[in-house]
Structures are given as C-alpha cells and as structure tokens.
C-alpha cells in the first residue's frame, strides 16, 4: 500500500475517493431518501407487489417518483404501453439532470461506458449531492467519488426496501401512516426546492390540482394527461409572461 508520503489530493488512489464518496451515506439527504424508501416498501406491499419485485424495481428503476407511478399502474392493471409512457414522462427530468452532471463529473480520459454506467444512478438525491460536492474535488477523483456515493446509496436502499417490506406489517397503524406520508411530503418539498424556474413551480401547482381531477375522470391515463396539460399550460404561461403579455 502507498504510504502517507504525499499531502497532495492528486496522489490518492481511486479506491480512496470511492470510499470517501461511500462515506456520504451518512448525511441528511441520504437519511431522508432511506426514510422515503421505507414509505415506498409500504406502498409496494399494500399494492400487492411481491418482495423480490419491489427489490428489483429499486435496483433497475432507481427513481422514486417513477417507481411510485409504476406501482400504481401495475396495481391498477393499466396496459403495458400506457404504463411505460407514464413512467417515461415521470422520468424525463433525468435527462437534463444527466446533461448537467456530465461536464462536472467527467475527467479528460473518462471512457463513455463509465459515464453511461454511472448515469443509471442519477436521481434527485445523488444528483444534488454530486452537483454540490464534485466541483470541490480534483478531476480524477470525481468519477470514483460519485461511484462510491451513488452505488452505496443504491445498495443501502435495496436493503432498506427489503427490511421495511418485511417489518412494516408489524408496526402500529400511527407509525405506518406516518411512513406512508413520507413519500408525498418528500417529493413535494424536494421538488419545490429543486425547481428554480417559475414554470416549474406553476407546473407543480397545476399538477397538484389536475392530478385528482384526472384520477377521477380518466383513471389509468390520469398521469399522462396531468403531466401534458399541466406542464404545457405552465410552459405556455411562462412564455407569454416573458413576452410581457
């Protein structure tokens, strides 16, 4: 092993930075996310999703809003294509997040396949963490640091999903209700905090109002219509305002 001869950051191994990133699991955003995954496990269980399926969702989808959409659609018996479209619409925000992360994350010689692999772990929590922490680190530290944090976060939350799924049936109803409240409140507050543009905030308000209406009028396709109508109206309103109307 290398000795402590150098004080420069550059001399640290990739594994050192990986471990530094993994240590980020002990942080407020990581703890909030774990609590939200407890809520997800409860939702999956109540919706008739089996434990291995819930674990598989956490590992492959890894975006809590999309997972909640997926669980809702499966338990409502929505058609496969409508489910995929609703999930795709709920996940669209991952693209601009990945676009914004890449110039911060990549080093001069980072191969494309590493970036594609790491992009799977892009979700609100790891993205905010990365955008705050990575710019302080030397270039060559960023890929291993992000890999350490995001992979640890995913593996820990897979364990949280499994443990919560098993334990949640044994808790008193007050506590269970409290856990179920975590997911919507976490979404509401983190989405609000993350939306910088007026159009995003208007879209949130419209979505909150339209969601229940479409749920009652057009069950199955309600999220598609909520997103398309609420988002387009919010975007159009912002463009009109920009023109000074």
């Amino acid at each position, binding site marked *: 092993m290398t000795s402590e001869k150098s004080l420069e950051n550059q001399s640290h191994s990739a594994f050192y930075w990986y471990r530094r990133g993994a240590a980020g699991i002990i942080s407020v955003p990581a703890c909030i996310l774990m609590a939200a995954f407890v809520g997800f496990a409860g939702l999956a269980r109540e919706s008739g999703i089996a434990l291995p399926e819930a674990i598989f969702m956490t590992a492959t989808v890894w975006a809590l809003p999309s997972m909640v959409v997926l669980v809702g659609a*499966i338990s409502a018996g929505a058609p496969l294509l409508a489910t995929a479209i609703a999930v795709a619409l709920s996940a*669209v925000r991952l693209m601009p997040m*990945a676009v914004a992360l890449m110039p911060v994350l990549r080093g001069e010689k980072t191969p494309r396949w590493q970036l594609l692999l790491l992009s799977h772990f892009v979700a609100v929590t790891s993205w905010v963490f990365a955008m705050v922490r990575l710019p302080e680190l030397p270039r060559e530290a960023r890929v291993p640091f992000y890999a350490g944090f995001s992979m640890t976060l995913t593996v820990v939350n897979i364990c949280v999903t499994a443990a919560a799924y098993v334990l949640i049936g044994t808790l008193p*109803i007050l506590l269970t209700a409290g856990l179920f409240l975590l997911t919507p409140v976490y979404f509401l507050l983190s*989405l609000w905090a993350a939306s910088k543009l007026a159009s995003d905030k208007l879209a949130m308000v419209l979505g909150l109002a339209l969601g229940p209406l479409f749920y009652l009028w057009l069950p199955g396709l309600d*999220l598609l219509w909520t997103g398309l109508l609420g988002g387009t109206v919010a975007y159009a309103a*912002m463009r009109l305002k920009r023109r000074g109307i």
Partner: protein
Amino acid sequence: MSGGVETFGWLWPYLVILIAGWLPTDIWRFLGVILAGKLKEDSEILVWVRAVATALVAGVIARLLLFPAGALAESPLSLRIAAVAVGFVVFKLARERVLVGIAAAEVVLIGGWYLMGGLSAG
C-alpha cells in the same frame, strides 16, 4: 397486464418492470450522457419537458395524499391536508430545509391523529 403470465410464467412481473420501469427511466439517463455538451440546460425543449415531468410528479403527490393506500387511507383527509400544508409552510420558514418540513408534517399527522383517537382505530 395479465396476458403475459401464461407465456412467461413467473418471469412476467420482472419483464413488466424492465419494459415499463427500467427502459423508460434509463433511456433518459443514457440520452443525457449522449447529448451532454450538445444540448443546453436552458434550451426551450428542456424547459417544456421539465414542466411536463414536474406536473406529472405533482399529480403523483396529490394522488398519494388524496387517494392513499394502506394505513394512510384510514386517517382523516382533512388531517392529511393539514399535515402537508403545515409541512410546506414550516419548510418555507426554515429556508427550504426539506428535513424540517417533513418533521413538521409528521408531527401534525401522527400527533393530530393520536389526539383524535387514531390509536384505538388500529
């Protein structure tokens, strides 16, 4: 989505998750990697796309609160709305700290329901 069970057996739920869950999420992430540098974060199409995604997730939030599953469905609707409203106000007062807002909402829901006799309902 039950038609595939006969053809694929126990694998079917996992295929559904891959087709309707993994593919439509990771495709955006991969596209983001490929488009990075070519697409500006503030381009018009991305602003619209983000507004649509935001409205859709807000719809999910409203659904989880108004038509919840499981234990939360047993709690009074007015209490759930009060909990989220208080949580949001406290979150704004605490300079948009998410954890503080969540704690406030939980206190209102669990404390309020306990005072209303929710414990005996369980």
